[in-house]
């Protein structure tokens, strides 16, 4: 048994799950900042991103070191590669949370629409659900229903499209239009978070099955592996 190696691999994966929990808090924080129009929370969120980045960097640096010293192969190699990609997805999700926070700041003082905010909150909660499902399946090497994430992502995509129509209808007033534009970007951020969560599921499938397949492709929305 290569104990040190096994421990190092386990530590990398623990770090990834830890990062995942922080990213979930970032999404929750972004949704709260949006719902309460809370500028103080916006500042906290932007600072909080450093916490995510610290884990991101530790994994990013740990992987080449492990590859160079331990030359993982087979399932271990797939785990290392999957961690590398999931790490990137988590970091991107956290960046979207920062973007949402900044949009909240830019939308400060503009007239708000309760219906739109409710829809965004709903989208955000679904994103959190997807992220926790993705990370849990990764942890459990669970591919019983790998495309559940694709199904969970669909209502988010639908909500994103619906929201655009709703935002256009808000009104001709300049401040209304400005708020609508900001919220369109928030919606887009949430929609992208959902996509990254789907990609985490793809990594779980790769890890377990040993071959990579895209669940969905932006250019062929219905494509799925047989």
């Amino acid at each position, binding site marked *: 048994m*290569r104990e040190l190696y096994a421990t190092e691999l386990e530590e990398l994966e623990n770090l990834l799950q830890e990062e995942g929990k922080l990213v979930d808090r970032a999404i929750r924080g972004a949704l709260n900042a949006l719902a309460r129009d809370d500028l103080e929370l916006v500042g906290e969120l932007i600072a909080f991103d450093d916490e995510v980045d610290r884990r991101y960097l530790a994994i990013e640096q740990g992987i080449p070191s492990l590859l160079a010293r331990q030359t*993982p*192969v*087979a*399932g271990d*190699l*797939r785990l290392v590669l999957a961690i590398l990609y999931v790490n990137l997805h988590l970091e991107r999700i956290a960046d979207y949370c920062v973007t949402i926070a900044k949009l909240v700041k830019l939308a400060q003082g503009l007239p708000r629409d309760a219906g739109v905010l409710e829809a965004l909150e709903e989208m955000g909660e679904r994103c959190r659900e997807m992220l926790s499902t993705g990370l849990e399946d990764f942890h459990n090497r669970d591919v019983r229903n790998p495309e559940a994430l694709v199904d969970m992502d669909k209502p988010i995509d639908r909500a994103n499209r619906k929201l655009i129509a709703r935002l256009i209808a808000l009104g001709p007033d300049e401040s209304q239009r400005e708020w609508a534009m900001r919220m369109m970007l928030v919606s887009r951020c949430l929609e992208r978070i959902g996509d990254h969560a789907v990609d985490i599921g793809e990594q779980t499938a790769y890890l377990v099955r*040993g*071959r990579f397949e895209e669940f969905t492709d932006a250019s062929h929305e219905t494509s799925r592996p047989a």
Partner: protein
Amino acid sequence: MEVIKTKIDLGRERLPTGEQEAVFEARDVSVYYGDQRAIDKVNIDIYRRLITAIIGPSGCGKSTFIRTLNRMTDLVPSARLTGELRYRGIDLYGPGVDAVEVRRRIGMVFQKPNPFPKSIYDNVAYGLRILGMKKDLDERVEKALHSAALWDEVKDRLKDSALGLSGGQQQRLCIARAIAVEPEVILLDEPASALDPIATSAIEDLMHDLKRDYTIVIVTHNMQQAARVADMTAFFGLNVTPEGSREGILVEYDKTEKIFTNPSDKRTEGYVTGRFG
């Protein structure tokens, strides 16, 4: 009879059927030393002009298996082979097959470089003289030394003793000696395990060059070496019989890339990752 056969497409040396041409076909090959079975029912096809690595834990019979491929096991009085081992369609252990001719066509290089206590030139010329391949002797020696990537290092001291060469050079000399007699297959039994990393890379580069003309089978303890050089990898494992004796079995045989990224058998996974059980 289950043959571990795999659809491989390495873009060369394919039969019209699209399959790779098998040089060796082992069918239920078992080897016994006295009553003790060393390897049990190995079924494998070894393909032409590819490098095939045999890996596995100590005592799994990988050296025993490679020695059956050129009838080196004949030299162990108690050794006995059952099953069928065909080389280019001919039963290697069939009646009328000349073991000396087998070993000319299927050369072997061992773990420890074993040059004769003779000059560099005579080491390479030795087999040629014995086999009566004396025509153009100088050219043949030079060609073999070139092929073994040793010529530039020794061309000015061909009459010097081979024992004055470094370990890595001695090993390449043994490879030159093996290829001088124009074999079709080269068997390498841990050819780099006694060498430093630089000499090891030279041998690995050499194998890569040699596979243009030869079929190469290598036994190695060094899994990364197998991963680096081999096209195909066979993993031999240890089977403990109900009576408590240990014998080698072929667990998995596939493209090297498959073995090291996504092996099909848990035992292979355990071995290549260094985590048993």
